[in-house]
């Protein structure tokens, strides 16, 4: 897994605007579709968008809400919305999300990013994001046990990641976990690099 180059911050802002742009167009498109399907009110069509849009279920935040509330994960959130995978992150799970920071996205090659943002590559973007999600609960303790018992870490995209330990730090797919948060539907581990699936 090669970690790409640093990008200039102006490029990352451009990227985010792009992502947000995609996002809003995607949203209005889906609303149109639902309106076409003919229900009684607009409110209804909103309530049919999925579990991601239900308010006040729990005092604890789910994985998506946590990311939305974090200023360090605006790029990730924008990417999630662009790829339309919000509902997967609020599902009952259980799931473990390895969440790259904005700085992690900044390390990506500019051309790669621009490519990903093309509408025809929406599914590719989604597959990269899904590669950051492991079904089941993996708190640090369980990840440590994975190392001890030589268990594999299966990612929702279909590939496996290696879990290693260096000193006190846990590494997943070669990137360091810098913080961990228990969320209502599993765990979120914050990482320093974007995890790119093989191929």
């Amino acid at each position, binding site marked *: 897994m090669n970690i790409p180059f640093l990008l200039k911050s102006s490029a990352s802002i451009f990227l985010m605007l792009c992502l947000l742009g995609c996002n809003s167009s995607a949203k209005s498109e889906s609303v149109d579709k639902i309106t076409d399907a003919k*229900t*009684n*009110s607009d409110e*209804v*069509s909103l*309530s*049919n968008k999925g579990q991601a849009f*239900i308010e*006040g*279920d*729990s*005092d*604890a935040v*789910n994985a998506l809400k946590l990311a939305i509330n974090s200023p360090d994960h605006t790029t990730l959130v924008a990417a999630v919305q662009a790829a339309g995978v919000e509902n997967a992150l609020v*599902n*009952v*799970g*259980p*799931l473990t999300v390895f969440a790259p920071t904005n700085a992690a996205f900044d390390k990506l090659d500019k051309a790669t990013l621009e490519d990903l943002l093309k509408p025809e590559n929406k599914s590719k973007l989604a597959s990269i994001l899904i590669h950051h999600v492991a*079904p*089941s*609960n993996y708190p640090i303790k*369980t990840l440590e*046990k994975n190392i001890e018992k030589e268990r594999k870490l299966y990612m929702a995209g279909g590939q496996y990641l290696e879990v290693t330990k260096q000193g006190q730090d846990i590494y997943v797919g070669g990137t360091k976990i810098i913080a961990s948060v228990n969320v*209502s*539907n*599993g765990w979120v581990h914050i990482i320093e690099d974007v995890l790119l699936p093989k191929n």
Partner: protein
Amino acid sequence: MKTIQKLLLGLGAGLLLIGCGNNSKSDSGAMASSNAEKVYVAPGEHDEFYAFLSGGYSGNLTVYGLPSGRMFKEIPVFSQFPTNGYGYSEESKAMLNTSFGFVPWGDSHHPDISQTNGKLDGRWVFINENNTPRIARISLETFETEEIIEIPNSAGNHASSYVTENTEYVVAGTRFAVPNPQKDMPIDEMKGEFKGPLTFIKVDQEHGHMEIDFQINMPGFNYDLSHPGRDKSHGWFFFTSYNTEEAHSMQEVNASQNDKDFIAAVNWMKIKEYVENGGGTEVAGTYAHNIYDESTMMATTEMKEGVTSVDPREVPGAVYYMPVPKSPHGIDVNPTGEYIIGNGKLSTQLSVYSFAKMQEAIKNKDFDGDAYGIPILKYESVLEGVVDSGGLGPLHTEFDGKGFGYTSFFISSEVVKWKVGTWEVVDRQPSFYSVGHLTIPGGNSREPFGKYMFSMNKITKDRYLPTGPELEHSAQLYDISGDKMELLLDFPTHGEPHYAAAIPADLIKSKSKKYYDLEDNNHKYAAKSESATRVERKGNEVHVYATTVRSHFSPDNIEGVKVGDKVYFHITNLEQDFDVPHGFAMIGANTSEILIMPGQTKTIIWEPKREGVWPFYCTDFCSALHQEMQGYVRVSAKNSDTKLRWSLDDEWKE
């Protein structure tokens, strides 16, 4: 010859049927399609009203939405419910205790929603049990049964569980007159010996807790239904009675001899005052009072002894009889409280009594003799009018708040709309078939919501796809917003839906609880984290303090259980999120599964009979890894020395 006759008959019937078929076809079409829109609640949208339908012989209460007729939940009340373990789990078993022992079944009847100032307030819904006289209170925050109180000295608690307009009291009646106190005596000496106690149960306004305040020891007629006074008649309660003949056998004939039976008009405020001032006598009466404590998550039974009995003749001005034609069933009071409607079920007419005239007759002592010392008000002096419907078999009446009454007619199988004040019939619609009760949201309160009315029909026949000889019952929804009633929808209900209470969804939906806060869980055997999970042995009792969370049990391996042990699985659901229940089932358990809501602890007993390694699992598809949510218990021989130990992910503890 016979064959020819049969053929001819068949042909005739066939033609008739074809004729009917054509008619009903032309009735549908354009109108039916607009009716479809009226009941269509699009996916993701919510209904406008909650309806709580009596579950009848199931002993439960079912929750429906209107206008869609969709069932949302079945709330177990008087019966064991294997879906979630109610009545099986250690926490809930006590809810079904009675003075007759553990009674796992009940015949639930008439739900009624609590009121404040005569208006639905959405705090609780009460429902009575007819067979083993009881009243239950269900929370409209958790939609769980919180309390059940037994009614002693009574039998056939049918005239129940109607509430006064500030929920001061909920009442219970006696439909089958019995000796009071019970005693061994010849049945055919019942006349004058049997009694029909009417029980007034006080409701604590903060927690809803019920307490028997007094029983009025009425003459032994059959008290069938009841209704509190409203607004101007607040302070009074009205009970219909039949079998004033006091027949003890073949009542279908012997109880229909008198032209008129009685409505008992009870001034409960007067009796309340009398009791507060030391009136009444303490009589025997054993009854169970079961309360479920949401904090400890445990139901407990208190067996109580003795009630205050009031002889109605000793409280002047408190109880009167009003004559009513032909074995009345329902009794209803209009929203202003002025009119009291007696539904004489073998009659064609409704008798409408005036509260003002009743007061006047009492003042003037306008009596027509007495029954066992209780004054009978002169029929002509209290009667305001009759609704001459032309229908047959009036049972129940509800009101729309717009000046109309709606009465069900069992025998002629129809609903009749009539005008309060003029008593003229303004509309009638057939019901399919043989309607019992009707419900309009708030239709027995000061403020009805007169948009929909639904009938609960006793006979189903061909309304749905056939399901063999045994059928569920059927309800029918009518639009009553216009001048004429319009039949919109059929929907099946558990048999027999004796009555229903309905309320605008906005009055309760926002306070509906989403999950139990783990911090408030004071269950004695709760394990509030995985680190608190453990297994303890006390003699042959093994207590497993276990937790569930997506997607594993802790512990999920247990060893050292022996044949002959009594294993208590105390399962705490650690989730703190809406709609993430976990289930628990153990092979060979002679109880049921349990379904544990987030933050809740429930306990089920398992008595292993055979050595081996036996699995348990989560019964609720809780998560993507639900199928992996399983575990094992190793069961050793009775005299083995297998060590008691447990683990999760191979971290064994002992």
